């Protein structure tokens, strides 16, 4: 079957983000960017399914600026077959991303769409569910296991308190959770190979999607800072502090 995977270019999760002094957003100039970790898990899953023989083609899609081509190349170095960039400058909010991805899905007609459960920049956790809703397809979010079986798939979802098992009809949208797999490192030969793989660039207008933001960001601020703490010498002092100063035990 054919699988479509989405990837997002985000600020590296190990970089400490700084709020801009004018309160309009966070600093992104000269900051290390990377593929969103949950998107990496999505790509890895598709590649493993291809290696196992259940998947024949992997199309990877990103919505973003020209630089997102790098992210698509990384996905192709991991094993995706070709890439599509929906090139859009500025902020594209989850609903608009979902509409763009839906438009690409309608052209590509994959049997399975694998997306990250959340991007670690805006932390919205919406796009996969929205794509699924717009298509009227089944959804399985936060999955830690997937086994395709003909025209359906058995999935295990990570939910509060444990796991949930579902059988979903295909085509469907699934979103990845942490324990689905451990993404591979890309190797230099594969990076070279990925440069030769096809990468198509389309504009939102060509897909007939209005990407005007619906949410207006009025300001972005630093969170309240915690006041400085104290070092305690031993367990006895810690207990004394918790009992007499903090009064929490």
């Amino acid at each position, binding site marked *: 079957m054919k699988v479509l995977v989405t990837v997002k270019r985000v600020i590296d*999760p190990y970089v*400490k*983000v700084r*709020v801009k002094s004018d309160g309009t957003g*966070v600093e992104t100039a000269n900051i290390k960017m990377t593929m969103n970790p949950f998107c990496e898990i999505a790509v890895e899953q598709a590649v493993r399914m291809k290696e196992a023989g259940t998947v024949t083609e992997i199309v990877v899609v990103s919505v973003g600026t020209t630089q997102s081509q790098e992210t698509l190349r990384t996905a192709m170095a991991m094993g995706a077959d070709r890439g599509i960039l929906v090139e859009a400058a500025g902020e594209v*909010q*989850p*609903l608009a991303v*979902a509409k763009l991805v839906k438009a690409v899905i309608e052209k590509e007609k994959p049997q399975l769409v694998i997306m990250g459960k959340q991007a*670690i*920049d*805006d*932390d919205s*956790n*919406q796009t*996969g*569910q*929205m794509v699924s*809703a*717009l298509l009227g*397809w*089944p959804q399985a*979010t*936060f999955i*830690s296991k997937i086994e395709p079986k003909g025209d359906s798939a058995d999935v295990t*979802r*990570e*939910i*509060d*308190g*444990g796991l*949930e*098992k*579902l*059988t979903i*009809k295909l085509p*469907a949208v699934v979103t990845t*959770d*942490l324990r689905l797999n451990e993404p591979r490192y890309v190797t230099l030969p594969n990076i070279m190979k990925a440069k030769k793989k096809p990468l198509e660039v389309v504009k939102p207008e060509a897909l007939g999607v209005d990407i005007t933001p*619906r*949410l207006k960001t*009025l*300001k*972005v*601020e630093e*969170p309240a800072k*915690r006041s400085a*703490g*104290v070092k*305690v010498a*031993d*367990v*006895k002092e*810690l*207990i004394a*502090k*918790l009992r007499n100063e*903090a009064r*929490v*035990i």
Partner: protein
Amino acid sequence: MAVLVIADHDGKALKSGFTNTVSAATKIGGDVVALVAGKQCAEAAQAAAKVAGVKKVLVCEAPHYDGSAAENLAALVVGIAGQYSHILAPASSFGKNVAPRVAASLDVQQISDISSVVAPDTFVRPMYAGNAMATVQSTDRTFVITVRGTAFDPAGEQGAAPVESLAPGPDLGLTQFKGAEISKSERPELTAARIVVSGGRGMGSAENFKILEQLADKLGAAVGASRAAVDSGFMPNDYQVGQTGKIVAPELYIAVGISGAIQHLAGMKDSKVIVAINKDAEAPIFSVANYWLVEDLFKAVPELTDELK
């Protein structure tokens, strides 16, 4: 103006985020209506009726609302959405699953994980693992919102509000619920616990978490884990505290063998008192701790458990 709150429940009882979500709904203003849908959920509906601020409960019972059932539930919500200015759900695995499906069906840009209500159309929400707080104003006609439970005090109790039944929608037949494996624990639920004891990579193994569990039991605390501990296979994912796991804000959070990666801090830095125990004096977790102890956890934790006797 009326606000619909989609309840997260197990049929008998409401999940902990419900009362906090009602509290956020009350801040928005207007009549608060709770929707309790499930296979069998009359008991949960009765419980919802007694949450202060709830004006009415809609209960909808049908086999196809069993489990998380996002597709059928979202369709049910969309069907009654016209009567509400705001549709709220807790930012739990349940709410995160269903709310965006409702939002997209209504052509609305959802506002995720709000931590404050500024005005009925303006909210504060964390981004970048809580390192930036954005104030956003929506231009949509309906507001679909998920609520960060720890940011709102739970609503109290009241005399029961009326419970009305709502006719179920059709079974779309897109997914089939095969069952759930819910971990059974005598300890309090992680997001609702007054005290949380969490372990990180420094714990070294799943086996070693026993010493944390002993401390937790002494304190009546819940047990949590960092993403590193989950990644290493020490603990199941539903113990994960952090940006991509659970957000907690207990009275006391004890971080053991946790270095303090950005993604972990995002899940616990709003705790009232934070204690960190780590042998590395440079661990970033100390920057958010009220009290920190530089010591080997395998010495400090058992000692702490003993001293609390």
